């Protein structure tokens, strides 16, 4: 009897969860579907869901007309570059805070976090001015530096929470065996830290890829990444649903896939280790 009740409940749970899940996912699904339609089918009344002539034409048109590859390349360079740079700066810092903590470690960590909370718009003009004066406006290097700095606190934090979990006894044992600091880091810590670093990298790529304040305000034609490319579709002449959908699908697909791999780390990274 009890078993029948749980099965029945499981069916209800499953149906409810799937219905809600599909509802939430629907805008993305609809975008992907529309990207395979012709412009006429895309605005057909009543709307067509699955039974239409699938076409890949939009994808080639988007690439031809707007040089999509350039924006994609900018996104890859900026997101990848800022992540690599950020991790290189953050690993030593997080390592020393996790393994050689001092009285001020906690204050430093919290202060770093507080810099992440400064509203970007509050420093928009100074950054804009610095960019103009140094010739960094609309350059990939400029944007890479800004994204490195805005995500650095999150990288340090995530790495810190991962490094914290590595047992200190292992380090002591290595030290007793006469390992130097360099050997300790290279042969003992690094292998244990790799999973944590990998998830930090993953989350940070996602955050940098989707960043849409500085990328919109500090780029024009040359260094614009996909966020800015998509924003150019907001003008009325860009109102072609199928092409907008194709461009959108291409812009979100890589990150959607990366994101699904990193859902667990997402919680830790975005709550600064407060929820695990």
């Amino acid at each position, binding site marked *: 009897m009890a078993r029948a009740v*749980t099965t029945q409940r499981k069916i209800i749970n499953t149906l409810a969860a799937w219905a809600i899940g599909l509802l939430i996912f629907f805008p993305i699904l609809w975008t992907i579907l529309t990207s395979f339609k012709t412009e006429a089918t895309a605005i057909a009344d009543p709307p067509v869901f699955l039974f239409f002539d699938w076409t890949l034409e939009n994808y080639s048109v988007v690439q031809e007309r707007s040089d999509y590859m350039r924006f994609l390349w900018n996104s890859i360079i900026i997101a990848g570059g800022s992540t690599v740079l950020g991790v290189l700066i953050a690993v030593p*810092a997080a390592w020393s805070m996790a393994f050689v903590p001092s009285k001020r470690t906690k204050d430093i960590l919290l202060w*770093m976090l507080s810099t992440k909370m400064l509203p970007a718009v509050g420093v928009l003009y100074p950054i804009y001015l610095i960019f103009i004066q140094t010739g960094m406006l609309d350059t990939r290097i400029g944007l890479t530096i800004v994204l490195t700095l805005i995500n650095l606190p999150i990288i340090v934090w995530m790495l810190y929470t991962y490094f914290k979990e590595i047992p200190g006894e292992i380090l002591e044992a290595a030290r007793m065996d006469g390992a130097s600091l360099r050997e300790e880091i290279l042969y003992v810590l690094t292998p244990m830290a790799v999973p944590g670093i990998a998830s930090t990298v993953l989350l940070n790529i996602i955050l940098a890829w989707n960043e849409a304040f500085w990328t919109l305000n500090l780029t024009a034609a040359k260094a614009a990444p996909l966020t800015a490319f998509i924003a150019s579709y907001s003008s009325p002449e860009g109102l072609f649903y199928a092409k907008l959908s194709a461009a959108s699908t291409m812009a979100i697909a890589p990150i959607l896939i990366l994101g699904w791999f990193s859902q667990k780390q997402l919680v830790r990274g975005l709550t600064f280790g407060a929820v695990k």
Partner: protein
Amino acid sequence: MATQHSRSAARIMMAPAVILLLGWMLVPLLMTLYFSFKRFLPLRGGDLGWVGFENYVRFVTSSAFWPSVQTTLIIVGGVLFITVIFGVLLALLLDQPMWGQGVVRILVIAPFFVMPTVSALVWKNMFMDPVNGLFAHLWKFFGATPVEWLSEASLTSIIMIVSWQWLPFATLILLTAIQSLDSEQLEAAEMDGAPSLSRFGYIVLPHLARAITIVLLIQTIFLLAIFAEIFVTTQGSFGTRTLTYLIFQRVLESQNVGLGSAGGIYAVILANIVAIFLMRIVGKNLDK
């Protein structure tokens, strides 16, 4: 000896991150502070001298200020309300035994990975367009007149778009928190005959309180700063000009840098008030 050695090494290893962040925080902030006390119009005469607190007074007394504060509060409040309520419900549902839990989780989380400009444009054109949008078709199907979402119900529309983006975040964090709940406690309560509503009220909700607080604080900080969603939909018209957007317009569109900088300082203070509470919670967690 060894500790002394590693201590100074630690300091050197920390230095780049600390120095960079210190520079990133102080230099632009001090510049904003400097500009906020100046009459500074880059396209109309440049630096026109010190004006004391005039920009601060003018920013709060301009006719655009209070509406923008109101708009900000409505958007932040609306999104927080929707994401936390539905986030808790959704997390409770996803925690139940079911088939295909992993797939449903992926479906629910997906919107968080969509870049803001894409989600805003997809919603604006393909759902909220009064002629070709899916909502218009749906309304017509039921014999109603399609709504001009982004002009007639502009704030509701923005809240819908932003809630869709942030619901996954709330759900994911609350789900993680629920899963850390000791199931024996719940089972014991169930055996003692506690009805599910009181099990939720007395066990689950108190357990979730901290996670909910964290969701509220983190989201508030990000929501105070939403930009792209407004930039590509209404451009601040139809009553959707938030404080962030107002400052953006003062600085880059009308190039009144002094006035915009004063607004920027207000935004920094506002964000810091929220941040202090968040830091307390995070800080407490560090001691464990």
